[in-house]
């Protein structure tokens, strides 16, 4: 019940995104179902729409300048071009870096394409698409003057900075009034034109009237489209946070995958398992402990907030529990997530950047060193948690009669 409710929320959120993208004039916006299935790598029928969407977004944002092909499936060359466009937008992941090395059919799994789309959305593509479409619909629109905000230091605001801010505020207020005045004039002119069109009955003016009417109708349609665009953007902004929570789950699902290529068959799975030298019976004890430890920080926070007993288990690796809304939307009192995990476009970018890395800036050895440092700090953190939990277990057991804890 709880999961289905969450799934409905996600469906609505992705629906808002699709409506907004459609309103911006993009050609190939998939259905929300495609997005949902893309998370689970459901094959070419999901990958192709995402390729086309990526191409459309990159083209509209002027990152690439090739028309998306009319074929139901995008050609491999076009896919490579889209990949290059993603690279130029700053999405530096391994599969794009290796795009030149891959011969033949260029295939990526749908989840990777979904992540790439998330990257574009997080880097401001939405606003670019919005501005582009608004400019198409409203030719009288003027780009607002960009004002440089005052460079207020991290120290408390001093009197000159405050005065500068007051000045800027006053300037913005004046600009607002000027824009309102322009809008009133436009309204007056439109009203006058409409009244001329309605009241005129002279045959000599019929052509003018009909031309005026058709022009006005076109203008009306444009204004309606513009209103629709703004409405869909507003709806999207209201639900954007949920979308990034869902994308976080996509990132996590991707991060747990051990493979780079999309799993097309079970043989690949088996060979991957063999490469990891996993015991055929699995490492049940270690897995249980890892699951318990991974679940503990969340549980401890919940105990601190609600005073409840520890829940067994917690999130298991690979479990698709991501469609639940976050605790805060349940009305729970979960503490705020650290910035890198916060459900926002920026948090999503940070996480992707953490995964994608920046090969242009770091050499392989430096990356390896950083990764080693990160691994050691994470291991230290895990050991600390383990020690703390062991102490708690001992205290608990000490309070229970006739029971002895045998530590692993």
């Amino acid at each position, binding site marked *: 019940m709880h999961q289905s409710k969450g799934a409905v929320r996600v469906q609505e959120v992705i629906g808002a995104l699709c409506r907004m993208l459609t309103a911006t004039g993009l050609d190939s916006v998939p259905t929300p179902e495609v997005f949902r299935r893309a998370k689970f790598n459901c094959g070419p029928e999901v990958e192709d729409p995402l390729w086309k969407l990526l191409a459309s977004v990159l083209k509209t944002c002027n990152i690439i300048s090739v028309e998306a092909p009319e074929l139901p499936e995008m050609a491999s060359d076009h896919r490579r071009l889209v990949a290059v466009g993603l690279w130029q937008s700053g999405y530096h992941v391994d599969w794009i870096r290796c795009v030149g090395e891959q011969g033949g059919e260029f295939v990526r799994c749908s989840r990777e394409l979904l992540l790439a789309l998330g990257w574009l959305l997080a880097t401001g593509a939405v606003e670019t698409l919005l501005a582009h479409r608004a400019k198409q619909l409203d030719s009288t629109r003027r780009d607002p003057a960009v004002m440089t905000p005052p460079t207020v230091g991290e120290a408390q605001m001093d009197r*000159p*900075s405050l*005065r*500068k801010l*007051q*000045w*800027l*505020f*006053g*300037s913005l*207020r*004046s*600009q*607002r*009034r*000027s824009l*309102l*005045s*322009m809008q*009133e*004039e436009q309204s*007056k*002119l439109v009203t006058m034109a409409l009244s001329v069109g309605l009241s005129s009955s002279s045959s000599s003016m019929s052509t003018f009237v009909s031309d005026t009417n058709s022009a006005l109708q076109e203008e009306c349609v444009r204004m309606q489209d513009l209103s629709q665009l703004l409405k869909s953007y507003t709806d999207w902004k209201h639900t954007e946070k949920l979308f990034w929570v869902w994308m976080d789950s996509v990132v996590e699902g991707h991060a747990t995958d051990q493979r780079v290529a999309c799993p097309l068959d079970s043989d690949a799975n088996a060979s991957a398992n063999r490469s990891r030298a996993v015991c055929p019976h699995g490492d049940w004890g270690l897995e249980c402990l890892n699951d318990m430890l991974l679940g503990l920080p969340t549980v401890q926070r919940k105990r601190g907030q609600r005073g409840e007993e520890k829940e067994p288990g917690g999130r298991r690796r690979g479990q698709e529990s991501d469609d639940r809304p976050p605790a805060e939307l349940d009305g729970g009192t979960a503490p705020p997530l650290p910035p890198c995990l916060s459900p926002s476009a920026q948090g999503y970018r940070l996480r992707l950047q953490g995964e994608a890395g920046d090969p242009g800036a770091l050499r392989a050895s430096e990356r390896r060193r950083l990764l080693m440092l990160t691994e050691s700090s994470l291991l230290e953190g895990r050991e600390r948690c383990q020690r703390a939990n062991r102490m708690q277990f001992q205290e608990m057991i000490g309070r229970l009669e006739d029971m002895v804890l045998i530590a692993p």
Partner: protein
Amino acid sequence: MSIVTVQLGQCGNQVGQELFDVICKDARDGQKRGYSDASTARFFHETTTGDLTSRAVLIDMEPKVINHSMSKAAKSGRWRYGEKSHFSQKQGSGNNWANGYCVHGPRHREAMEDLVRREVERCDRLAGVVTMMSVAGGTGSGVGTYVTQCLREVYPNSFILNHLTWPYDSGEVIVQNYNSVLTLSHLYGLSDAILVHENDTVHRICAQLLNIKHISFGDVNRVIAHQLASVLQPALTTDSYGDYSKNPLGELVSSLACHPEYKLLSVCGIPQVASSSMAYSVFSWPGLLKHLRQMLISNTKMEEGIDWQVRAPPVHCGGAEWAHSFRTTGFNRSLANLLILRGKDVFSAEADGFQDAALYTSWLPPREAFSMWKSPVSFNQYEKSATLVSNSQTLLKPLDNMVRKAWNMFASRAYIHQYTKFGIAEEDFLDSFTSLEQVISSYTQLC
């Protein structure tokens, strides 16, 4: 975009009539078509017969001045006031701000608002409202303040520029300082910008520059009208994209008066020469701008008697060092300046001297503090003219004098009963003094 002018009281109506005269002559006399059309559309409504009717509302509590202004306009043959664009009564305000603000204003609010609304509705696009009044009397100051308040309520998004004429220091109206303090304190919260002309300054211009022997109010009003017209006539601005600005008041306010504590603007224009000397005078842009810059920093309000010893202090010396430099050298610090150049070869004029950071306060860089408008069309028979609208410490001393004198009277409660009987309490006076002391403090500490 059109400007609606509201002329209030004797001074406002007289200056207003001179203003429209100057504007109409300037727009019509051999000017380029674009400039003429822009100016005409901004200030006049053209009837089907081609007659120009000013976009003005005339308000006074006595009929005499309004009748005189209307007949003078009609006699010019170039333009006239609207037949029904005036409101007057028979009894006057008795040089009493409270009488104007508390009695006449509310009593005749509907009639005055109707007049303004009619003019506003005749505009395709309202650029804003300019009110013209003096602060010394009763109608201009009191009714003018009340009308401004009503305008702010009815047109909250329109720009309101108040043009004020400050009285002679040794004025005839004994309570002029009370009226001035009450007017300024109220207008500060209502107006977007307050453009000030001082009678004393204009009188000196008439005497020393224009060589007028027997100076009348008409001469003073013509000088004020000339300077005001040089500000309001069409010009090419940064935001007008090669066309005459359609938003002059908005751009003026944005350039000069964005901060709520700094709204006092002074006007200074050169050259100002007698008409008999005009034929023999040759001006260059570098010379004009050099003089104007020195007039600004030395706080000299006309070309004669400029103190060339005053220099801008080193950039942004603050605190006591700044205060010392101000007292000893008479340097006038600016918050923002708007330079308006009109005439021949205007695009060759360079105003780098006004972009010196040393002229301005530390928290507003010159690129935001300084603006320039240009018009390639000569103005009012001057081949080249430069007008500087300045938000600076220029008006600090006269304001301080005004408040000091008013306070000295208030301390002994002189003539207060004349105000309290109309509904103004002593607390209202105290509030006004407090507001203006804050303004004085803000300008004093401009560094």
